[in-house]
């Protein structure tokens, strides 16, 4: 998002911003708008009505890969050079012992995939991010509308919805 041209409407209250979000939702002149929030208020999420996050697929695929990797690692390595320990043959006879490995790899790969999923879906890491307003990570809410101008209709609408401040970004 090298192009940061647009307007940012700042809100002070959660209910106000939710109200505003519901208003702008689906409008073509608010295409690609972003809502900013200092924390993950579910009210905003509901207002935005997002579809379920694809992160869960990352998790699923990662975890399953992990399970397979874990068991495969143990079985293949043992198959490569079977060494009898404790009176037992390696491989399928020792499968109970490999459950631990399978489990740990499931979690490990699942966790890594989940984080990767979050990063990918959140478009992170993003070193070039432009900070629109410092208060957005503190206690203020914001709606950023790309392509709009300070005195445009979108600004007016947001102002009406209760924005305490509207400023242009670039």
């Amino acid at each position, binding site marked *: 998002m090298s192009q940061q041209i647009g307007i940012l409407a700042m809100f*002070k*209250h*959660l*209910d*106000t911003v939710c*109200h505003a979000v519901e208003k702008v939702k689906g409008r073509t002149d608010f295409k690609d708008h972003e*809502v*900013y*929030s*200092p*924390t*993950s*208020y579910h*009210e*905003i*999420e*509901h*207002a*935005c009505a*997002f579809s*379920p*996050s694809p*992160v*869960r697929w990352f*998790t699923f695929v990662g975890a399953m890969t992990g399970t397979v990797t874990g068991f495969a690692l*143990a079985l293949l*390595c*043992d198959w490569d*050079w079977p060494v009898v320990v404790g009176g*037992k043959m*390696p491989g399928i006879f*020792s499968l109970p*012992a*490999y459950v*631990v*490995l399978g*489990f*740990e*790899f499931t*979690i*490990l790969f*699942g*966790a*890594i995939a*989940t*984080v990767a*999923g*979050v990063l990918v*879906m*959140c478009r*992170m*890491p*993003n*070193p*070039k*991010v432009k900070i629109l307003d410092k208060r*957005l*990570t*503190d*206690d203020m809410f914001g709606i950023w509308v790309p392509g709009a101008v300070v005195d445009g209709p979108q600004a007016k609408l947001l102002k009406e919805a209760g924005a305490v401040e509207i400023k242009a970004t670039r």
Partner: protein
Amino acid sequence: MSEIKWEKTISDVNNEILVNLERPHKMYYVALAISVACVLLFVTMVGYHTVVGLGVWTGFAPPTYWLVDITNFVFWVGIGHAGTLISAILFLFRAQWRNTVNRSAEAMTIFAVICAAVFPLIHMGRMYLGAYWALPLPNTNNLWVNFRSPLFWDVCAISTYFTTSLLFWYIGLVPDLASIRDRVSGFKKVVYGLLSFGWRGTARQWHHYETGYGFLAALATPLVLSVHSIVSWDFAMSIQPGWHTTIFPPYFVAGAILSGCAMVYTLLVPIRWMFGLEKFIRADHLEACIKLTLLTSTIVFYAYGIEFFVAWYSGNPYEWAIFQKRAAGPYAFYFWTMVACNCIFPLIWWSKKMRYNMVISYVVCVLINVGMWFERYNIIISSLIEDFLPGSWGHAEPGLWEIGLTIGSFGLFNMFFLLFCKFFPIVSLSEIKLIMPKPLSGHGKGGH
């Protein structure tokens, strides 16, 4: 929790919590200096024994081939349990009080796991080989690791736990780092900017973030329960009397959570005072932590009891002999210290007044930590020192070297934790905002 009267609003959160980045208490520097000294001691000692030989650990008096090393390992892994438990399980259970303590608890987890991982490494006779032979890496020997060894499971469990906890902790930190980024300037801004991955805080990001966080919590929950189970298998998979028992996994997990919660309390009380966070980490939150501690303490109490019962009921003479010796043998002191600290003292918390009495609760929490250390020590020494053949029985006491390393590991832990307190938000900014009164306009409708 609903009746908590917050004196602060979310607007105060960043301003007041992030003071730690600027002007910590004088005591902070004293504590840090002591910790660093301990770490130097630790590093020197480890270096020396790597070069000279493990013989300097005079507590290793066969048949006790493990003693303080594995005690510390299990102890620190146990400590490490509270963080992820608080973050993950309580997250899934939507316990609100967790939001005030989860960040520091997670940090504690990570540092405790580091301390824990150090011990199996340095206790190896040839750590310089063990460090890579114990991993299933391709090698010119064409030889792999033993996937059936509990120690290898340990390697997997601890590294998975560490990685997952780190990811969990860090992913939680990202929005807060962004908050810091937005408050500081210059070089710091660059650093925090990089650390925060360019978090913007859009609703879409929060949406994915929340999903990911939830899945991580879901993954971490069985992990927490598994890690200490696997650690307990270090003991349970051998056939030593007193070790070879199926009660170990739940017993260890309960003990771990007990020690972890006690450690959270032990850490938060001074930190909260040192950084003036009383208004955020409130007495009610700490009291909730105490309740969890009390719960696990009773589980542990039960486990101690049932362990004895099963030893007697099994009719296994070796098992029963070990348990009798635990209670009445040469190492009875450790046993009774452990029982008193872990089971008896926490009983005062049945009184609500005591739960809110921070001095007494603090003392009891410290005692629980002592008790949990002795629990592990007791398990190790009593089963090793007098097992099957009387001809091999011996006697062991921790030597100065081990005590030094134990102190050193505490120093390591404290140093990490203090550095964390200086450079990261001690309380999760975004999450505490969630449990604080919502910033409503006052006239009318809420979110939905």
